[in-house]
């Protein structure tokens, strides 16, 4: 197979990943690395480099729309980006020390956690109560648009959220993913932000987090232009198409399909990591 044929196939795979990721709201980044390593037999380091690039493209594209609509909490995002960028640099540094086998095993476990997380029901938090001292000092409380007009909300447990974000940054830098699942966990579960604010602020932060480790990977030679180019354009086109087609799709069934794909890839990554076939 020559460069042209391979690029077209990779573009198609990335397109499907971007489309599914956008339709399910889970992001396509998490299946790019398994797709490249398991299907196209690409070295996991090149796969992580290409995946990071695609993650920056889709998150920045989506964040552009959300931030304009006023869902994103820019102060919360900016504050937590301190934790995710330090984490991402830590992760990129650690990635240079451990063997690809270890990365494959961690990747498999993160895939399983993501699939499990998508099947869980979410609970919308009740507003009110005593304002949080740290959140007040950092002026994090804000509001977001709803059909009944602007809805005010309070932010809680900032140090806990900050700590989880550091872990999200490490995973992003180590595995080349956006780790949106962990970011939403920190904001939705720990900091009690409304779900829509959590997902959009997570998206807002993913580009910065991924850019922090992408710089390191560029200098280390992990970013192969021949591979990153079809992946980046494919995921971007898929994500744009998904955003347009979204109103016509039944998401629960798609989420189930996506979760199944993620579980299959998780076991494959774990198996290859354990047997050293990576």
């Amino acid at each position, binding site marked *: 197979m*020559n*460069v*042209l044929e*391979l*690029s077209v196939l990779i573009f198609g795979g990335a397109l499907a990943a971007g489309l599914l990721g956008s339709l399910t709201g889970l992001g396509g980044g998490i299946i790019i690395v398994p797709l490249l390593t398991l299907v196209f*037999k*690409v*070295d996991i*380091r*090149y796969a992580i480099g290409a995946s990071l*690039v695609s993650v*920056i*493209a889709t998150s*920045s*594209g989506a*964040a*552009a*729309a959300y*931030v*304009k*609509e*006023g869902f994103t909490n*820019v102060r919360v995002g*900016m*504050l937590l*980006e*301190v934790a995710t*960028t330090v984490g991402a*640099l830590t992760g990129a540094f650690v990635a240079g020390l451990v063997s690809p086998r270890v990365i494959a095993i961690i990747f498999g476990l993160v895939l399983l956690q993501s699939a499990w997380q998508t099947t869980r029901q979410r609970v919308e938090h009740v507003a009110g109560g005593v304002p949080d001292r740290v959140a007040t000092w*950092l002026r994090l409380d*804000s*509001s*977001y*648009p709803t059909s009944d*007009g*602007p809805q005010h909300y309070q932010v809680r447990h900032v140090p806990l959220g900050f700590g989880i974000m550091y872990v999200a940054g490490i995973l992003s830098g180590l595995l080349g993913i956006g780790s949106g699942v962990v970011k939403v966990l920190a904001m939705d579960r720990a900091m009690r932000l409304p779900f829509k604010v959590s997902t959009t602020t997570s998206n807002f932060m993913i*580009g*910065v987090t991924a*850019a*922090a*480790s*992408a*710089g*390191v990977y*560029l*200098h*280390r*030679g*992990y*970013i*192969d*232009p*021949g*591979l*990153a*180019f*079809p992946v*980046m*354009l494919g995921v*971007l086109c898929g994500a744009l198409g998904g955003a347009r087609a979204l109103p016509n799709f039944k998401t629960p069934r798609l989420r189930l399909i996506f979760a199944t794909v993620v579980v299959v890839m998780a076991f494959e990554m774990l198996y290859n990591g354990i047997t050293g076939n990576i």
Partner: protein
Amino acid sequence: MTTASGHPASEEHVEQMVGNLLRIGVLVAAAVALVGGIAFMTHHGSLVPDHSVFRGQPAMLSSLSGVISGTLALEPAAIVQLGIVLLIATPVARVLLTLVAFAVQRDWMYVLISAIVLALLTYSLIVG
């Protein structure tokens, strides 16, 4: 004066600028990568690649100065890599823009927070 989101008008103005910056950054980066990619296909499309063994990248494709000099020499792979560097630079420019916006609002705590993030990103992109 407030808006549909309940955010002050001054903040909403910043949000519009940030949104535009992100959109333009991604579009420009994708366009540059596409031009480089088409040139790459016409020059190297019939080669047989091997990505199964990790060899890293030459200096031209793994440093900012290498990418710029390669682009000036119209090297297709370097043009693709320039698109990727522009893409990595888009969130960095966004952090710079929010830093300036916080400074205009005299919100010094968030100027400091943005400056820390900007310093970390610059370090990563330039020093690696």
